[in-house]
């Protein structure tokens, strides 16, 4: 039975040739294409029983508004193994608050994507009354749930969510990361205090500007100013003390030193003037300055929550493993696995610790660790390394090393993965403009102040201290600390609209500084996700034979089967008998009384010694024991790669690293002409070493990779960008995540980041002019508080304006499609 679209719909589709020319019935729940025999209920079509069941549950609980808010919002529910959530250790690690009546837990649910999700997840109490409350944090994709643990267990809560298609992702990450989560709060507190005090100080300073003479008020206002300025300097400005102290301990001068110097000088000089009643001090300028600087910092800190860069490899690790003891299976936390424990690994599960295979056929996908795209077959007795994923039947392992010592943790514990620890910040490799300038700027300001002070000490000693301090106050390079966050912050926003999500704004400076780009090949330059299968048959299959294949592959959930099924979507579907799926190998069955086998070469038609070495993966077909050929899935270059590489070739030196064999060398010769520019059959550690050796030669390296198998290289590079098809699932610890569709814009993005740095240098020159004016007042001993109070905010606002407008203008020019 075929479903034909209505006539009008057909013409609409005809006009809009981008969409498929034949509309298929889509599932009311999840929106995916329905099979030829959709499941119907209440005049609604469903693609599978899972979707139908969710609909029934929601309909019974009167939650069908779910489907009105967003069309086809659902996710096909998957089966998940959540027995481990019954383990008391795991429960106590996962749950937050708990008392006699209720327990609080926070789940990370990657499937949250629209307002319907929010609606459903916040109405869980209607389905299960023992759930007292559920709140969604949309950007973080978190759900906070309060439930009565006497009526419903943690596992049941998770299972309920899974059955609705919202499987919580529970991993090692949830347990480990809990303590040191960065928080935005301290900065906002400081900002609030600074704003409150600075505003009041400005108010109390007005009489001074206007020349109020009444001595009692004057003194009151001055003391109030002093009182209000104290928390601003020592609480709100505390970050500067810390930063300068950290730099000085490493015998360095950073940009914060002159700022702190200016702040402290202004504060103590003001205090002296107030106490001795000799002047009004510069409290208004200094508190206003700190307020401005904190706004800049806050702007810098506001990153996009929906891409959590804090989730690293630990979020790929399961929390528990299935321990086999006698005849029972118990889930145990991974951390308590010991040498000699026997564990069971099911299809698609990750091997949590190195172990010896003693039962079952191992077919291990090591793409996670080595980058090999083909699963490796292992026989009992083989040593399996942690990090591999079993594809196929369940296997049993005997653990030989506990988790913390295994190969994977060693790889991830490599130095390159710990850039931020041990006092040596990794950004040291690229000296930021601010730090370079900061050093010379500080030294010259100090020298200038000393010279001017000495001069006045000789000619008119009473003015010497005044001039010395005034120079330090007015020459404060606050402008640099303002144009940085605003320019880079605006740049980061624009780039994120172009689907390049950066970890923080500083990455833009690192991107701009890089002169070498290292590409990973598979998954970065190429992708098999979008590839159409190519028919490679000795004798082409006729229509009848194609429908035999199509009928059979429809029964399999394997990704390659799905692709073939999608490719043959218009074939006639015939009933299948005796369908058998051999995990990791293939499928077979009787279609129309013909025996069809589809799968790997060895499975379909074993022919020893005759293996075809080709790139990409293939699905082989035999009909009635006659081998016919295969569907090939070539690794296709992503759209726009030619333009990207030819454009980048002019400005950067390019390198290519690949975990695959050399098949593609000829194709890529155009862009990587020299020897040594392409390295094939690279393991993750070799990729990392390659980047490191480039750096040792003084190169600043931008690594563009696809994720975990080059995670080490991404981290080691001065800037590491992960190209991904799915930003929801994929969040390795890189500096930035680029959606694959935007890869073609990479050269423009790099150009944009360079413009950003030029703009900052330009602002710095403008700020020097302001400083020149200010210092010329100060050097003659005429810097009145009112001049400072006008000059300093004026220069700050100029910097903010230049940075913001400049970055927006350039962004519109380079990316015209991105107007807002």
């Amino acid at each position, binding site marked *: 039975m075929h479903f034909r679209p209505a006539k009008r719909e057909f013409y609409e589709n005809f006009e809009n040739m981008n969409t498929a020319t034949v509309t298929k019935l889509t599932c009311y729940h999840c929106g995916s294409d329905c099979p030829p025999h959709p499941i119907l209920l209440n005049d609604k079509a469903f693609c599978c029983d899972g979707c139908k069941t969710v609909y029934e549950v929601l309909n019974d609980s*009167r939650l069908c508004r779910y489907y009105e*808010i967003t069309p086809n919002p659902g996710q096909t529910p998957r089966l998940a193994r959540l027995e481990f959530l019954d383990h008391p250790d795991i429960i106590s690690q996962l749950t937050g608050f708990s008392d006699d009546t209720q327990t609080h837990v926070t789940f990370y649910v990657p499937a949250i994507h629209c307002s319907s999700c929010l609606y459903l997840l916040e109405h869980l109490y209607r389905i299960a009354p023992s759930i007292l409350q559920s709140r969604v944090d949309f950007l973080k994709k978190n759900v906070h749930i309060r439930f009565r643990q006497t009526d419903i267990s943690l596992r049941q809560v998770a299972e309920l969510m899974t059955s609705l298609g919202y499987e919580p992702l529970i991993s090692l990450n949830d347990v480990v990361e809990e303590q040191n989560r960065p928080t935005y709060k301290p900065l906002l507190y400081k900002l609030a205090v600074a704003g*409150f005090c600075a505003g009041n100080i400005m108010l109390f300073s007005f009489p001074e500007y206007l020349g109020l003479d009444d001595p009692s008020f004057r003194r009151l206002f001055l003391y109030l100013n002093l009182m209000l300025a104290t928390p601003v300097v020592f609480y709100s400005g505390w970050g500067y003390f810390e930063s300068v102290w950290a730099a000085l301990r490493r015998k360095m001068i950073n940009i914060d030193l002159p700022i702190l110097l200016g702040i402290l000088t202004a504060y103590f000089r003001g205090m002296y003037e107030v106490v001795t009643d000799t002047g009004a001090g510069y409290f208004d300028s200094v508190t206003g300055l700190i307020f401005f600087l904190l706004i800049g910092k806050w702007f810098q800190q506001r990153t996009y929550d929906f891409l959590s860069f804090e989730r690293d490899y630990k979020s790929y690790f399961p929390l528990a493993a299935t321990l086999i003891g006698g005849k029972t299976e118990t889930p145990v936390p991974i951390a308590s696995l010991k040498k000699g424990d026997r564990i069971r690994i099911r299809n698609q599960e990750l091997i949590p610790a190195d172990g010896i295979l003693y039962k079952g056929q191992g077919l291990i996908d090591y793409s996670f660790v080595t980058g090999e795209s083909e699963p490796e077959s292992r026989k009992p007795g083989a040593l399996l390394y942690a990090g591999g994923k079993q594809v196929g039947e369940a296997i049993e392992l005997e653990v030989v090393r506990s988790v913390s010592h295994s190969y994977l943790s060693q790889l991830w514990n490599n130095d390159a993965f710990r850039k931020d620890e041990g006092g040596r910040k990794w950004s040291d490799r690229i000296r930021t403009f601010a730090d370079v300038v900061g050093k010379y700027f500080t030294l010259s300001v100090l020298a200038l102040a000393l010279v001017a002070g000495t001069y006045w000490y000789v000619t008119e000693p009473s003015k010497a201290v005044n001039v010395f301090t005034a120079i330090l106050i007015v020459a404060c390079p606050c402008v640099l600390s303002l144009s940085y966050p605003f320019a880079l912050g605006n740049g980061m926003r624009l780039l994120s609209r172009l689907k390049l999500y950066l970890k923080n704004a500083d990455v833009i400076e690192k991107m701009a500084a890089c002169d070498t780009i290292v590409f990973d090949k598979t998954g970065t330059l190429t992708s098999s996700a979008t590839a159409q299968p190519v028919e490679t048959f000795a004798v082409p299959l006729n229509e009848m034979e194609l429908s035999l294949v199509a009928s059979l592959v429809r029964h399999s959930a394997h990704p390659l089967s799905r692709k073939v099924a999608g490719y043959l979507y218009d074939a006639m579907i015939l009933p299948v008998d005796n369908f058998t799926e051999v995990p990791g190998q293939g499928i077979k069955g009787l279609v129309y009384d013909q025996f069809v086998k589809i799968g790997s070469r060895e499975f379909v038609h074993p022919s020893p010694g005759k293996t075809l070495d080709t790139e990409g993966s293939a699905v082989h077909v035999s009909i009635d024991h006659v081998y016919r050929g295969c569907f090939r899935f070539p690794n296709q270059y992503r759209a726009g790669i030619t333009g990207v590489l030819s454009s980048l070739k002019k400005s950067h030196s390019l390198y290519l690293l690949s975990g695959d064999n050399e098949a593609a060398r000829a194709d890529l010769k155009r862009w990587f002409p020299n020897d040594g520019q392409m390295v094939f059959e690279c393991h993750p550690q070799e990729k990392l070493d390659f980047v490191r050796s480039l750096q040792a030669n003084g190169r600043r390296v931008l690594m563009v990779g696809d994720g975990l198998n080059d995670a080490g290289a991404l981290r080691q590079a001065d800037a590491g960008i992960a190209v991904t098809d799915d930003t929801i699932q994929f969040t390795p610890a890189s500096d930035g995540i680029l959606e694959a569709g935007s890869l073609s814009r990479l050269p423009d993005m790099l150009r944009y980041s360079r413009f950003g740095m030029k703009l900052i240098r330009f602002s710095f020159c403008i700020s020097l002019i302001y400083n020149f004016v200010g210092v010329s007042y100060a050097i003659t001993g005429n810097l009145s508080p009112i001049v400072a109070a006008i000059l300093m905010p004026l220069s700050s606002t100029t910097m903010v304006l230049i940075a913001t407008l400049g970055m927006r203008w350039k962004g519109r020019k380079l990316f015209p499609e991105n107007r807002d």
Partner: protein
Amino acid sequence: MQVIFFMIGISLVLALGFLSAFFWAMRHGQNDDLYTPSIRMLLDDTDPAEPPPDSPTPKPRNAQTFIP
């Protein structure tokens, strides 16, 4: 003019009141999630007592009488 001392005191207390209100809001997580409430407020909370919109049971008779 002595009233100025008093008024300054009042103004400072008022301003401190706002500051502490902000601190209170921060401490109670009012700034934790600035995005979700904007979606949440658009979702009507339908009354569970209503008949389910997709109920397979036929509508009550009297609903038909209004149809001309």
